[in-house]
């Protein structure tokens, strides 16, 4: 579904992603790593928000690096960005609507998608008309996730979605992600809460200093000593 | 390195100060105008550093003009002293208005300052007996009897003063306060900065500078009228010069005013018809090709050469 080949990304002179190759098939893939490893940068590059210096990115066989972000998104990739990127002066409902409005295969299913999102995050339904900018930190996070789900994506990218969510909702979120996964949506997930994250994915990469340090199924990763020590705190 | 910098600065100041000795009246005159815009530009930039886009420059300039000229006219005040009065008057008005308008932000602040300048103009135009109405008032003679050298030195001192104030803003805690306010007022507040106090302070200081510049200008020609004192030239040109030179710095407005000021004069002589078109094109080109102003571009070049020089040293 998504294939990245020999990707190199720089910020000015700073080399952030080093010759990285990875794939996301019809599965859930985790991307773990310490702060500053380059996870967000990688996601931004996939989305065309950052231009790579070298390498290729394919989505469903089509090359997408070099395309404008909006085109990539319309191809069927939705994202939950780390920095939220909501429309602060629009209502919750409008924010959600916009998630679907510009994606061809989501527009027609708007109602259905609304119900789906409201079911996961009932608070969004209750706050339909509140301005997004006035929501609490966690509520905004939910809204961001909801907005991405509204796009009815084939690949859902989530950049640390659990940050700021209350424990019960985190658990539920990963549970729901698993269901979404089972409905045929591929998932690329970065997460600091590795323990929970592993539950929602099939396979994962450990990204350190812009390079892939480790790769394996979620079971393999959970059993790996390095992962245990640095990421699970065991 | 630092000493060398100091020396260069001193040399430039000395060169500027001694300009009348080696330049003829015409360059002198052009430079006097440039210095006027330089001081205005600096004052505008200082306000901008707090994040507040002010369109009141011409307004306070005009207030200063009127205050200076009228005190000389009616009270017989010494012209030099009257220029000071111009600054004080502008500062007082700014202080009083500041309480009402400094809670405004962004375009609301900008437009309100613009509107205030409009109010000043209407008042100046309609108080016929006191201000001379639309025709304005004229003094029997210009300051220093129009001696261009002394007028230059006067304007030079005003500009130099503005530079010093601007540097003071850059080198003291004021810089931290106003940069923080510009970036994020909530963070600034929470870090203990009294936002209103600083805004008021900067507003009053910059208005005072504008008032002094206005006073000096009025005395230079011994004449004041609403059209000349509140002309949008004194609003838009300094802004353009600052933006072209590079904002949030002392050097930017200085460079911008000198380059654009001299350039416009040169173009005028070179192309009597349509020189303003070329001027406009150059301004557009500056925006497109030097997004951080002339200063930003110079810095970039300097950085490049420095690393190249550094590289050579390493090779040795």
């Amino acid at each position, binding site marked *: 579904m998504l294939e990245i080949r020999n990707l190199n990304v720089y*910020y000015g002179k*700073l080399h952030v992603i080093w010759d990285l190759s990875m794939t996301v098939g019809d599965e859930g893939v985790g991307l773990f790593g*310490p*702060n*500053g490893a380059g996870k967000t940068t990688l996601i931004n590059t996939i989305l065309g928000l950052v231009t790579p210096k070298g390498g290729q990115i394919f989505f469903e066989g089509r090359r997408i690096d070099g395309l404008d972000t909006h085109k990539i998104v319309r191809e069927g990739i939705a994202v939950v960005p*780390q920095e*939220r990127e909501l429309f602060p002066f629009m209502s919750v409902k409008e924010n959600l609507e916009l998630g679907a409005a510009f994606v061809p295969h989501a527009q027609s299913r708007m109602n259905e998608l609304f119900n789906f999102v409201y079911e996961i995050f009932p*608070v969004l339904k209750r706050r339909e008309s*509140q301005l997004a900018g*006035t*929501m*609490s*930190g*966690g*509520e*905004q*996070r*939910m809204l961001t996730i909801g907005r991405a789900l509204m796009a009815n994506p084939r690949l859902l990218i989530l950049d*640390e979605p659990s*940050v*700021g*969510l*209350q*424990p*019960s*909702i*985190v*658990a*539920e979120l990963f549970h729901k992600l698993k269901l979404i996964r089972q409905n045929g949506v591929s998932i690329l997930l970065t997460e*600091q809460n*590795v323990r929970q994250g592993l539950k929602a994915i099939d396979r994962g990469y450990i990204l350190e200093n812009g390079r892939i340090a480790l790769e394996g199924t979620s079971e393999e990763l959970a059993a790996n000593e390095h992962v245990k020590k*640095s*990421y*699970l*705190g065991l | 390195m630092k000493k060398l910098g100091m020396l260069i600065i001193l040399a430039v100041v000395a060169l500027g100060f001694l300009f009348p000795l080696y330049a003829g009246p015409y360059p002198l005159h052009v430079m006097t105008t440039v210095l006027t815009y330089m001081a205005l530009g600096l004052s505008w930039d200082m306000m901008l550093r707090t994040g507040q886009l002010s369109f009141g420059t011409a307004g306070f300039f005009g207030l200063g003009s009127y205050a200076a000229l009228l005190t000389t006219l009616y009270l017989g005040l010494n012209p030099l002293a009257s220029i000071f009065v111009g600054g004080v008057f502008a500062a007082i008005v700014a202080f009083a208005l500041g309480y009402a308008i400094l809670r405004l932000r962004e375009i609301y602040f900008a437009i309100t300052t613009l509107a205030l300048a409009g109010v000043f103009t209407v008042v100046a135009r309609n108080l016929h007996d006191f201000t001379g109405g639309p025709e304005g008032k004229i003094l029997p003679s210009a300051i220093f009897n129009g001696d261009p050298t002394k007028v230059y030195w006067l304007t030079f001192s005003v500009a130099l003063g503005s530079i010093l104030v601007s540097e003071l803003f850059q080198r*003291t*805690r004021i810089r*931290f*306060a106003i*940069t*923080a306010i*510009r*970036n*994020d007022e*909530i*963070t*600034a*507040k*929470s*870090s*203990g*900065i*009294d*936002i209103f106090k600083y805004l008021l302070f900067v507003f009053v200081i910059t208005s005072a500078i504008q008032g002094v510049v206005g006073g000096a200008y009025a005395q230079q020609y011994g004449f004041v009228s609403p059209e000349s004192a509140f002309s949008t030239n004194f609003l838009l040109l300094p802004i353009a010069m600052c933006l072209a030179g590079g904002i949030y710095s002392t050097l930017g407005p200085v460079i911008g005013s000198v380059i654009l000021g001299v350039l416009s004069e040169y173009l005028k002589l070179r192309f009597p018809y349509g020189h303003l078109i070329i001027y406009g094109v150059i301004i557009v080109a500056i925006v497109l090709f030097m997004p951080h102003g002339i200063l930003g571009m110079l810095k970039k070049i300097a950085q490049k050469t420095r690393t190249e020089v550094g590289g050579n040293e390493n090779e040795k």
Partner: protein
Amino acid sequence: MKNEPPILTVEKLIKRFGGLVAVDNLSFTVQQGEVLGVIGPNGAGKTTLTNVVSGLYRPSEGRIFFQGKDVTELDAHQRCRLGISRTFQLMRPIREFTILENVMVSALFGKGLDLKSAQNRAREVCEFVGLKRLKIPIESATVLELKKMEIARALASGPQLVFLDEVMAGLNVDETNEMIETVKKINASGVTVIVIEHVMNVIKELTHRVIVLDRGRIIAEGSYEEVSHQPEVISAYLGEEE
């Protein structure tokens, strides 16, 4: 500890946003030197409480006393200078400044130091929280560095009371542990700390006492062990699993 007068007293605090009551008639005290945890569901009013106490919002009703002094009418910068400081859940660095300069701002104005001493203090505080790259621009700082910077800024003003609003959200295990140690050190230096977190480990490790908020009201109070077993807390907040 119990005999000393409380450092913070909140009395019948109400904060409304239009029809929504974010903080609902809240009263509690914080003792000098304690680490208080504030937890509760998303939207419970934790950040709003922080905003009201630190002076960013005026309360709709109620009073706030800090070290026995009524500070309800004071502005945020005045409260900062008195010794209340806070971090921001949605981080708000000053983008044009380096990390060090960001921290200096609060040393300069919160603590009222001159440039030189402010710089020294900022360096000290940065070192204290474990910041290494002090002169980098904000855009190249990592989330961890930004979080640390938030803490450093809160400390540089020399506070008596700090609110740490989700400073450990989004950190991995190692980083969280490091941060917990930092907070312990802060507390050990005599600063009263109010921790807001959704990561229960942190709450468990750090706090002496926990307040659980829901819809702006306290639904439980006590040690972490106590509250975490209360059914209301489990159903409203923790969920079945933990």
